[in-house]
């Protein structure tokens, strides 16, 4: 496929790997912020190839992983309501809440429909006029325009039986949180390419200025990732804390103004509880008051759980803030596996724990 295959080319990747190795004079610590990047880094073995030269820490890059237990519990409660159908991306359905995941709720009779796009949930609402359709709107800025569009379409269509659980999160405040951890070791960031397609990268300017770390906008294919890493270590070796765009085919400095306008029309920035991190100031979006009737949290407020218990054994927060690697979690591969996850990072195909469980050879061999 054009614009995919070229960026998976093995020979180009090898050259970039060599170039990175040549350039590095001491081990550097980089954080990737998007789970899609984590996935590729592990899947293609890039992390192992650079061991000793670039340590890759996987940030809170998976919106599935950071969605709060309360919201999962809320979605589960909605699914169990008669005449309510929860629509969700496939990614979310195995994420554990306090007691159940959406998939388990379905196995108890709850109603759940997996959709490819939030817009499909609109069609679902039209086909089921007697049911309430609630879309679980998770995702970074990349996904936010699609759910904003769904809200706008539902409004224009006058749908009374459609609403969303607004659970979108924003990347930059999370990076800010990471930098403020006392034990933070991150020296440079690979900024999430598709988030930047929406937001642009000028938004990182004050961040870079404040924390004096380089930020490189990076894509998702192995060649893209290696380009990003190469650029980051080049900047680090040169002692430069600037923003660079190494995903220029899909990212403009100011991002996509249409997408931004769409978000802005439907959502406003709000504080948000990140699973494992606690409340992050400006860490997410809420629906504007004029779309209150589309807000499942208001429409079905009585089902909102008072407060969810914390994950007891799961060290997902430590994993996502780079304090530990998944394999350092005592539960990893023992009581926690993709078949029976204790925490969200083991569920999502982007979650750092799941990525290690699937693609890390040592891990795979250990459980044979």
């Amino acid at each position: 496929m054009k614009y995919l295959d070229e960026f998976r080319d093995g020979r180009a990747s090898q050259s970039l790997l060599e170039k990175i190795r040549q350039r590095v004079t001491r081990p550097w610590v980089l954080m990737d912020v998007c789970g899609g990047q984590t996935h590729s880094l592990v899947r293609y073995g890039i992390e192992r190839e650079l061991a000793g030269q670039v340590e890759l820490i996987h940030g809170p890059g998976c919106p599935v992983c950071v969605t709060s237990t309360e919201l999962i519990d809320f979605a589960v409660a909605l699914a169990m309501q008669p005449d309510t159908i929860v629509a969700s991306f496939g990614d979310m359905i195995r994420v554990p809440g306090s007691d159940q995941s959406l998939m388990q709720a379905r196995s108890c009779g709850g109603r759940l429909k997996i959709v490819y796009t939030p817009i499909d949930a609109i069609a679902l609402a039209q086909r089921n006029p007697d049911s309430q359709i609630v879309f679980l709107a998770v995702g970074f800025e990349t996904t936010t325009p699609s759910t904003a569009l769904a809200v706008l379409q539902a409004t224009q269509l006058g749908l009374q039986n459609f609403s969303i659980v607004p659970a979108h999160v924003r990347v930059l405040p999370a990076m800010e949180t990471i930098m403020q951890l006392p034990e933070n070791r991150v020296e440079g960031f690979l900024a999430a390419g598709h988030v930047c397609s929406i937001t642009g990268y000028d938004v990182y300017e004050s961040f870079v200025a404040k924390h004096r770390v380089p930020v490189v906008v990076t894509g998702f294919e192995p060649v893209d990732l290696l380009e990003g890493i190469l650029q980051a270590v080049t900047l680090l070796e040169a002692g430069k804390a600037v923003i660079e765009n190494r995903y220029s085919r899909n990212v403009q400095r100011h991002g996509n103004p249409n997408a931004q306008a769409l978000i802005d029309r439907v959502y406003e920035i709000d504080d948000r509880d990140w699973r494992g991190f606690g409340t992050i100031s400006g860490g997410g979006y809420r629906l504007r008051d004029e779309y209150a009737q589309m807000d499942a949290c208001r429409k079905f407020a009585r089902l909102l759980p008072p407060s969810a218990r914390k994950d007891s054994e799961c060290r997902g927060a430590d994993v996502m803030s780079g304090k530990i690697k998944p394999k350092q979690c005592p539960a990893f591969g023992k009581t926690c596996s993709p078949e029976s996850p204790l925490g969200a990072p083991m569920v999502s195909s982007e979650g750092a724990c799941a990525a290690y469980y699937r693609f890390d050879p040592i891990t795979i061999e250990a459980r044979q």
Partner: protein
Amino acid sequence: MKPVARGAACPAVPVSNETVTLSHGEGGRAMRRLIRDQIAAKLGRGNVQLHSDAACLGRITKEIAITTDSYVVSPLFFPGGDIGSLAVHGTVNDLAMAGATPCYLTLSLILEEGLPLATLGRVIDSVAEAASNCDVKIVAGDTKVVPKGAADGIFINTTGVGVHSTGQRMTASRIQPGDALLVSGPIARHGLAVLAARESLGFDPPPESDSAPLHRIAAELLETLGDDLRTMRDATRGGIAAVMHEWAEESANAMWIDESQLPLLPESRGVCELLGLDPLLVANEGTFVAAIAPHRVDDALSVMRSHSRCGQPAQIGHARARELSPVLVSRGLGADQPLDEPIAAMLPRIC
């Protein structure tokens, strides 16, 4: 996921470790483990051949009989049996009734997402025990998982392979006018047991199914009676009435039944009267009808009596030359009455 469920949402299905999930049907590790730990381990080594596409039965020198049945009973467990033992007995009995010795079964499961693994375990234990009682080996299997609401707990298909020890073919076309119709024991037990359990009809004692294997009694009858045993049929769905209609059609004779001779437990009688059901139409799962040469009635009844399962075997009628009605019932008053085939689902009624 927490190992212990809290909250009230679904106490029956607390954690994924304890229920069947769609992942168990996806061909991966979860499925391999389910089959290994929950199915193969219980069925015993040497039974199911797990990892190949087909099992090899080697060479079989005798004539081969084959039969298939799916079991969809609800509830899965009922007084006197469960879907597991039923799936073994039903298929074993179909072979036995054809005069074959049951040898091998295949076992194919359709599981509904959310089924407690403990329930699956009980069913498989029951399959294993019944198969061992019947001396049949389970040689191949299959497991599918369907989404919640797309099945009813467990459906089981068993396909049975047996061999004919003698060359004798037991078809209903062999029935001649004058042949005696015998039933091996009290009728209507299975259907009533399942109906009462499913609809929670609150009878005390709850009616109990007659589910049982029939291969031993069938073999002994065949050996004792030889050609005088015309044919046998387990009177499952549609009960005695359905068998009589099939035999009438296949033999082109009429089947005549004396209602007063039907063996019926008192509790079955009570339930049938109260719910307005005709016991001739109610299913059995370990009770069969045999058509035999009239001079062998005593021999046949004594074989039936010697198998403890079969309390109250009885002659219930005989075959006649067909005039008009294919099946006739004497109700002790005036002329015989025709007996119609079962039509609709058996339901409690007040009319």
